[in-house]
């Protein structure tokens, strides 16, 4: 199973990905993923228990979250894999990523409502259920609240971090791959992309926007590239206040540990893997 750069997908591959997404939405399975993410987003705290954000397990938690989602897509269409969005390369609001045959474009100025593509509210096939405000249609404000996506140079700087993570294992960790990749310190990678897309992607219910999966797939790829250079380490080795150690089970699964998630090649490969 190979995950590909979205820019290289054929028209048919895009159409099948979109169709599988719409089918998960229709059956209600899609919104279970949105709700799970939103619950963790609300409870992950710098000073309390944290798993999906602001924590060393940010990367393995999302790796498993994406795997579950990809498996759900494959129950609909076994040929579908998650594509990734390399935002260091596809940096424009006019990228084919945002075309009407794939994810659709930015929202209108008045209320952020996406008006084009298969996920536009007016299609009647993409109602927003788990949300933070009254808008029941997908919203985006591309490049409005954040002018520029991170650059390849920003990525290289973060991938040069020698440690996986450091104390206090939260958003104030001053170095380490995890916090710099998450974006609370350093050039701001992951967080900045959420803000650049805006609308639902800026909220705790960010998986409402299909681009969530393509963005996090690229974050996952960057983690794999860091591992290829620095080794598949995870810190902390043992549980510390608020955060799980390498062999501790993560919620919501209960039987999945960070070290279970260290080698992505056990599950899939990337088109750029050596």
């Amino acid at each position, binding site marked *: 199973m190979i995950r590909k750069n979205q820019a290289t997908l054929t028209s048919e591959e895009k159409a099948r990905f979109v169709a599988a997404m719409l089918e998960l939405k229709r059956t209600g399975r899609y919104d279970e993923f949105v709700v799970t993410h939103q619950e963790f*987003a*609300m409870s992950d*705290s*710098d*000073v309390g228990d944290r798993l999906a954000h*602001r924590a060393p397990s940010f990367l393995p938690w999302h790796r498993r979250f994406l795997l579950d989602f990809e498996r759900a897509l494959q129950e609909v269409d076994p040929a579908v894999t998650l594509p990734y969005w390399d935002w260091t390369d596809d940096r424009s609001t006019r990228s084919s990523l945002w075309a009407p045959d794939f994810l659709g474009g930015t929202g209108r100025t*008045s*209320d*952020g409502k996406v008006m084009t593509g298969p996920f536009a509210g007016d299609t009647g096939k993409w109602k927003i259920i788990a*949300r*933070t*405000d*009254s*808008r029941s249609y997908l*919203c985006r404000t591309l490049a409005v*609240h954040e002018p520029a996506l991170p650059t390849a140079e920003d990525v290289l700087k973060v991938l040069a971090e020698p440690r996986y993570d450091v104390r*206090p294992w*939260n*958003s*104030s960790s001053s170095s380490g791959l995890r916090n710099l990749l998450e*974006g*609370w310190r350093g050039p701001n990678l*992951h*967080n*900045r992309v*959420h*803000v650049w897309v*805006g609308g639902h992607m*800026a*909220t*705790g*219910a*960010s998986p409402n926007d299909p681009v969530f999966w393509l963005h996090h797939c690229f974050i996952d790829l960057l983690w794999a590239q860091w591992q290829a250079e620095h080794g598949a380490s995870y810190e902390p080795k043992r549980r510390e206040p608020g955060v799980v150690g390498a062999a501790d089970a993560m919620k919501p699964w209960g039987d999945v540990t960070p070290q279970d998630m260290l080698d992505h090649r056990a599950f899939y490969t990337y088109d750029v893997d050596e």
Partner: protein
Amino acid sequence: MQGEMTRRSLIGHVLGGLVGTVGVVGLGVNQLGARAATGGEPFFAERYQGRWITGGGPQAQVELDRRDRGVHGHHGQPVVTVDGVPLHVMRGADGRYVTSVNHYQSFPTLKAAARAAAESLRGAALEVAA
């Protein structure tokens, strides 16, 4: 969406709670910028981009009418509302704030977080967190 009178009545509850906590009953809305006696961020209440935003803390205790919204602020927890509806807000280790509307950005003050939420909402009503 509830009517204008109901909304005003709810705002009254929120402001009543704020004033009660400061212990200076009778202050007008424009005077709520005063720093709370208990410390923390100054209370604020202002109209911003057509929205009524209020907030204060982290040591403020703001009680919303449970019958109206089923939500109340706890002691030691920052509180922000937009048009009377509480916004989920969290204080980071660096003292900055993140909200459920702008989950991937932090703001130096509760007022900055509330204003950013008002901008992001673009006229939409906040929904009360479960």
